[in-house]
């Protein structure tokens, strides 16, 4: 079942993702009856392996590709997606962005797990270290580069990442993985799935990871010895458990209930404030319901509760979030219309230590977000030409009303697809930006949302079923970008980013796939006259790599052995004093028995250690790890 908030250009994506490496035109086990009844035989037959029809820059990491990598965290799996900037700032902290503006609070990228947002409204970004999934049970990771505001709302300015876990009917039985490594110190995870009755299946899982400290420390000039000391000791432990229950019946539709509980800490074990470490814990519970009364109509409902607590030096952030979304899809004639409404309510309580010379006004805040969206996908010329019109309307507490429209179009040839899009997207101020205050004076209460106007053009082509090419280019204009103007925050920066992202796959043999991903970007930012943030625009520009290159080889030597090798190049980040670098990863997989998997993984190879970001960071060290998985 597709996740609730996946919009139209992704519904076509979900049908395809699972078939990426097979010769099949449809996902035999993943296509529902309602979908089957609407499949057009001749248009599907135009090519045995259909091109992705999405008129957007999408890239899918399948379960198979994720497992081959042998990574223990989502963030590391994203290193081999074209155009995605992944930086490991410390041993256990990542900064991930798409199309620039990376940093600890990479605030223009929306990330979701099964449609549940993991974007922090406090920092405006994703705290990757506290978000985890059992990668074995991830069906796919969909990465959309470019604005997704029309479907997903604010903060999806530069991209959307949706991590989609498997239906519990597809995770029957159990497995245990034990792993040990130099840096990925230990991984212990287990899952068990079973059938409750004819229509209901469930699974439970547990995952425990331990990561070693990073390498050398690069502190800022003004960093105190205690900060340096804390950085040296930045290992982490993460514990997580959860469940998923699916019930599918044609009369009642598909019902999913899932939840997770997690608890983790970074740095030295500490108690109370004053010491530089981090603790996080939380839980969530989510209910999804999808129902198709006819082949032409689908209702989808999503309800979730998310509770998080974050403790860092001098600050405790506790927050609760309720989210409700409903959407309906209706097909008639050559139209496919999706419309929906959403309501989100959050409350927080932020406790800042008296030792910190700043405050948050107010300390407790309730927030509301109301939204509605509609999209119409109109097909012409025997389904070859598509026009997708849509807009999202949002009402939030920080900037009032926002409209995020987009127009997309695509034309499919027998072996190719060209698409173009125009979208507007916004990034609303975070709680921290808006409410941070010194001596009772708030810094950002006049902040406006950041705005982007984005043009995209893409082309996908396949030749003789062996070659696949995907090219996306974009030109994004930004205005009202956030700047810090002592003593206040303002929106004094603007500019544009132009770039191109390509992915070329070659199925050299039936058991050997080669892929080359390459992206290039140019960022040009400036500040308004009178702004004090002149240096900021240079830093932001210098924090985006001009060029990134990834070379991937997935080779099934024989049914028992797989060798997967990866090579990546990241251009220099002058704004962060990081030189360009090459790094390699390798994963050798062996199945001595049908239900036993042994995986030897080498990562971050090529240097003894490497800084990937500016200051206040630790170096990334090469890792060698061994994982043993036993299914039962």
């Amino acid at each position, binding site marked *: 079942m597709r996740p609730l908030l996946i919009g139209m250009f992704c519904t076509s994506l979900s049908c395809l993702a699972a078939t990426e490496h097979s010769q099949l035109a*449809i996902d035999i086990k993943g296509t529902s009856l309602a979908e089957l009844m609407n499949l057009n035989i001749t248009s599907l037959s135009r090519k045995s392996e259909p091109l992705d029809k999405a008129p957007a820059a999408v890239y899918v990491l399948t379960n198979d590709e994720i497992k081959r990598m042998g990574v223990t965290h989502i963030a590391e799996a994203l290193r081999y997606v074209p155009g995605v900037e992944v930086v490991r700032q410390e041993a256990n902290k990542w900064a991930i962005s798409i199309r620039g503006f990376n940093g600890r609070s990479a605030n223009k990228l929306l990330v979701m797990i099964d449609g549940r947002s993991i974007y922090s409204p406090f920092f405006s970004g994703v705290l990757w270290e506290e978000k985890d999934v059992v990668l074995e049970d991830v069906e796919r990771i969909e990465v959309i580069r470019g604005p997704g505001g029309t479907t997903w709302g604010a903060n999806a300015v530069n991209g959307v990442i949706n991590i989609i876990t498997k239906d519990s009917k597809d995770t029957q039985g159990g497995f245990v993985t034990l792993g040990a490594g130099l840096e990925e110190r230990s991984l212990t995870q287990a899952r068990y799935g079973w059938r409750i009755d004819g229509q209901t299946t469930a699974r439970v899982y547990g995952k425990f990871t331990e990561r070693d400290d990073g390498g050398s420390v690069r502190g800022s000039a003004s960093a105190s010895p205690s900060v340096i000391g804390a950085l040296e000791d930045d290992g982490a432990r993460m514990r997580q458990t959860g469940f998923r229950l699916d019930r599918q019946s044609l009369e009642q539709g598909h019902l999913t209930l899932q939840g997770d509980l997690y608890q983790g800490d970074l740095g030295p074990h500490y108690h109370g404030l004053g010491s530089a470490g981090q603790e996080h814990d939380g839980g969530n519970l989510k209910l999804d319901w999808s129902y198709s009364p006819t*082949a032409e109509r689908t209702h989808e409902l999503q309800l979730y509760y998310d509770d998080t607590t974050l403790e860092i030096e001098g600050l405790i952030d506790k927050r609760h979030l309720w989210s409700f979304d409903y959407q309906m899809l209706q097909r008639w004639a050559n139209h496919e219309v999706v419309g929906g409404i959403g309501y989100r309510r959050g409350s927080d309580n932020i406790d800042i230590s008296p030792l910190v010379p700043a405050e948050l006004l107010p300390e407790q805040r309730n927030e509301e977000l109301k939204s509605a969206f509609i999209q119409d996908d109109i097909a012409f010329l025997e389904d070859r030409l598509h026009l997708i019109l849509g807009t999202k309307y949002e009402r939030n507490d920080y900037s009032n009303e926002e409209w995020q429209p987009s127009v997309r179009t695509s034309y499919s040839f027998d072996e190719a697809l060209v698409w173009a899009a125009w979208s507007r997207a916004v990034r609303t101020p975070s709680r921290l930006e808006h409410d941070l205050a010194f001596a009772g004076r708030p810094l950002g209460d006049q902040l406006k949302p950041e705005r982007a106007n984005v043009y995209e053009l893409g082309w996908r082509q396949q030749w003789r079923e062996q070659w696949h090419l995907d090219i996306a280019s974009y030109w994004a204009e930004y205005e009202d970008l956030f700047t810090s103007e002592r003593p206040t925050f303002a929106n004094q920066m603007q500019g544009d980013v132009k770039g191109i992202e390509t992915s070329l796959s070659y199925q050299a043999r039936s058991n050997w796939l080669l892929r080359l991903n390459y992206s290039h970007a140019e960022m040009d930012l400036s500040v308004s006259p009178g702004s004090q943030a002149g240096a900021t625009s240079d830093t932001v520009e210098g924090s985006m790599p001009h060029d990134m290159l990834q070379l991937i080889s997935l080779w099934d030597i024989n049914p028992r052995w797989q060798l997967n090798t990866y090579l990546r190049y990241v251009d220099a980040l002058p704004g962060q004093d990081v030189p360009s670098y090459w790094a390699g990863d390798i994963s050798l997989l062996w199945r001595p028995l049908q239900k036993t998997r042994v995986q030897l993984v080498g990562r971050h190879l090529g240097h003894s250690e490497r800084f990937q970001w500016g200051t206040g960071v630790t170096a990334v060290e090469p890792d060698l790890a061994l994982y043993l998985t036993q299914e039962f």
Partner: protein
Amino acid sequence: MGACAQRHLSWPRWLALGVALVAAPAARAQAADVAYQIKASYIYNFLQFVHFPTDVLQGAGTLNVCILGEDRFGPALDEIDGATTPQGQLKVMRLGRFSSSAALDGCNVLYLVDSERQGVDSIMAKVNETRVLTIGEFAPFIRHGGLIELFEQNDMIRFRINEELLNKTAFKIDAQLVQLGVK
């Protein structure tokens, strides 16, 4: 009526073969491929919503899906072989063309490919349709006593269910599947 006419009409093997060679250009073969992927997906989907009579499966934990006729599914069938359903794990058995000595006893699900259209009555005579779930991909399969019939309409593949037969058997099918299949 159609059934009576067909019973007496039997093509010589060599003629059928000759026609197939001449009339099957490559493009058509590819189109058939997609149609059979959709059909394989239907088989998988149906079995998610059908409850077999308890005495039929006897807790074996596997569901034998027999494909009778020319194998046009290709790798699509491999996808559902071994898949789990509420009734058990699917085991796909490709039986090939029908002959009077064909062993259909082990089949829980019997799928008749279009190639068996001519011999449908002799096949159905060997099957206890109250214990075996029969699916046919040609019309009028239902009139020959089949339970589910797949047919093409407006370039899409749809299905109908033989409600009369369903009421006589101990199969339980989700009411809405029946409803979707009646339209």
